[in-house]
């Protein structure tokens, strides 16, 4: 018996390989590079890898456009047009998210716990902070997750699909639990995300097993051929297909598999929330598109019932529940659920326009999401008692700037205190709402018109109605930012300082109470009246990311044609 080595097209794999190799290198950097230079090294490595990956996608582009793509690794991965579009979008969006992740406030604090494994408020944590021990494993984890995301939409068989899904999920579970402030919330979010995520992937792999039992192969093309010929095993096929879709719908956060979304989005470090909201959705929708368009098109009649129900429930519930939220991060989470519903209408359309519409929508949504969460990260609570407002020295900032001001009432009057930031946030909200001249409008228009062409006009109708309802709560925030005066101006000395644990005595107290259990309860309940809202001065990376996101949102809204053409030019799946 001889062993035949498989023929591997390394070039076509390069976008993924670069990112994963840099992730592995990053783990080594974490272990061997001395503390002082570790962060710069990690940053250069991560930036370099993402830029390299984008360049690799660009280099593959013309070849794929003329040939229509090719299969790699004996058909395990399919490098075709949608794959390249999604990998390019993932590269760009991760780069933007990385800018927010890497940003630090003027006092040198990023969004992540310096020693995430330590018990919040413990002596060890205190010691580690005093000695300045800082871990930077965020960057390799981010790269590994991105690698998984880049593989997911390119998969050509169910084995690769499952492994890619896990490769993207496991780092995200950890990243969720690493927030610097409100660490209990963060750890709790990580636990919820992990348990529900593991449950969903167990459902997915059982679906894979049933499909394997039905078709006798894991390759998409073989399964599609088996699906097209009727047999006595149809229940096996249907249950398997539904379980597989459930696993993917969980990742995009569609109702009724959305329960984790608000909790995880709220608890995770804000830059990671932005990354997760944008990029996980892109990867999972890419896989969903491929599976639905190439494996199950002949099952359309059976699966339509499931997917229509899910899409309508997702749009309606996401919108309705978002109307009553009082926390910015939870509100954006429910809005992301509603957006998952809008994208689903494009997936269900099942025609060629649907593919490019979904790809464009994901790009437009991802850009606005990363920008919006970048802004949420910059808008902070500041304790009034610790320092006067005009004292901008490092020491005063360190003492007084607390966690993110996520309660909606704290955003009142932001348009007056920091007009540029509020303007950018308003722009992202308008894009979410789908107002013309923003990228969101073009995306919504493309998705809904694809749905109408595909014969799913009731879905498009529900989509338009719920976007109209959603516009209400987006506009409400804009009104709050521009036409309401800041809440604290009226009652700066209201009682409540005692309740909040009186964090008045300088840096250590402010940090530990904020990290510890006592403060969590008060921060969750309602914002203590001893805090004002401030925009924290940072190193400027997040500002760059927000600026680029705003620019892209406007450009895609005003001149969408080049990008739409670019996408629809290649938006065909390999059979």
């Amino acid at each position, binding site marked *: 018996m001889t062993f035949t080595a498989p023929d591997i097209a390394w070039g076509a794999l390069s976008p993924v390989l670069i990112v994963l190799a840099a992730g592995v290198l990053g783990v080594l950097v974490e272990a061997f590079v001395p503390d002082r230079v570790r962060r710069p090294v990690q940053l250069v490595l991560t930036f370099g890898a993402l830029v390299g990956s984008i360049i690799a996608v660009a280099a593959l582009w013309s070849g794929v456009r003329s040939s229509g793509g090719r299969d790699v690794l004996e058909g395990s991965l399919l490098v075709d047009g949608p794959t390249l579009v999604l990998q390019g979008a993932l590269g760009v969006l991760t780069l933007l998210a990385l800018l927010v992740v890497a940003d630090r406030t003027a006092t040198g604090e990023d969004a992540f716990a310096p020693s*995430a494994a330590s018990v919040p408020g413990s002596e060890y944590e205190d010691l580690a902070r005093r000695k300045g021990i800082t871990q930077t494993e965020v960057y390799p984890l981010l790269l590994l997750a991105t690698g998984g995301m880049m593989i997911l939409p390119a998969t050509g068989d169910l084995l690769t699909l499952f492994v890619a899904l*896990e490769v993207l999920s496991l780092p995200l579970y*950890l990243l969720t639990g690493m927030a610097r402030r409100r660490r209990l919330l963060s750890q709790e979010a990580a636990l919820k995300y992990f348990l529900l995520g593991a*449950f969903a992937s167990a459902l997915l792999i*059982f679906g894979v097993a049933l499909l*394997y*039992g039905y078709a006798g192969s*894991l390759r998409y093309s073989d399964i599609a051929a088996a699906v097209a010929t009727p047999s006595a095993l149809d229940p096996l096929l249907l249950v398997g297909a539904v379980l597989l879709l459930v696993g993917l719908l969980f990742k995009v956060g569609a109702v009724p598999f959305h329960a984790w979304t608000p909790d995880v989005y709220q*608890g995770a470090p804000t830059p990671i929330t932005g990354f997760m909201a944008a990029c996980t959705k892109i990867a999972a929708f890419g896989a969903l598109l491929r599976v639905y368009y190439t494996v199950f098109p002949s099952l359309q009649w059976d699966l339509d019932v499931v997917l229509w129900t899910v899409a309508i429930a997702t749009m309606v519930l996401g919108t309705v529940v978002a109307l009553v939220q009082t926390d910015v991060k939870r509100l954006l989470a429910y809005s992301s659920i509603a957006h998952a519903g809008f994208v689903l209408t494009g997936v269900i359309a099942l025609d060629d326009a649907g593919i490019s519409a979904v790809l464009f929508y994901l790009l437009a949504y991802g850009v606005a999401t990363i920008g919006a969460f970048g802004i949420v990260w910059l808008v902070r609570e500041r304790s009034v008692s610790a320092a006067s407002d005009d004292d901008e020295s490092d020491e005063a900032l360190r003492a007084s700037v607390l966690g993110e001001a996520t309660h909606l009432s704290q955003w009142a009057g932001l348009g007056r205190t920091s007009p540029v930031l509020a303007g950018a946030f308003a722009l992202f909200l308008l894009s979410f709402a789908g107002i013309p001249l923003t990228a969101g409008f073009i995306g919504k228009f493309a998705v809904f018109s694809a749905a109408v062409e595909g014969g799913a006009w009731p879905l498009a109708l529900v989509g338009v109605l719920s976007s109209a309802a959603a516009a209400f709560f987006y506009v409400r925030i804009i009104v709050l930012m521009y036409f309401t005066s800041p809440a604290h101006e009226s009652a700066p000395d209201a009682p409540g300082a005692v309740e909040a644990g009186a964090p008045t005595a300088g840096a250590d107290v402010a940090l530990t109470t904020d990290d510890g259990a006592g403060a969590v309860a008060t921060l969750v309940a309602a914002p203590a009246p001893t805090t004002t809202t401030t925009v924290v001065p940072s190193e400027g990376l997040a500002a760059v990311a927000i600026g680029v996101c705003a620019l892209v949102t406007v450009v895609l809204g005003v001149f969408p044609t080049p990008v739409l053409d670019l996408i629809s030019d290649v938006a065909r799946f390999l059979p």
Partner: protein
Amino acid sequence: MTLTHYLVLSGILFSVGSATVLLRRNAIIAFMGVELMLNATNLALVTFSRMHGELTGQVLAFFVMVVAAAEVVVGLAIIVAIFRTRRSASIDDVNLLKS
């Protein structure tokens, strides 16, 4: 003894596992439910592999084992971190995040 019996057993194990995840309150036990679901899947995969007379299913079973091990590493890390903070691994106690 037909191969279908193994599939029925796999289905039962999978149901027991998912019931455990949904009903039990302890994070470790819930997590063991997930592991049971994965192992039920492995049984189904190996049985199907035997039925079809080819090896893909068995290869996939190995991958599932590897992934399950990786999941244990990440999951136990998170559960232990929470336990050290709160002295409890009950998912009813983790209730700070609510709308």
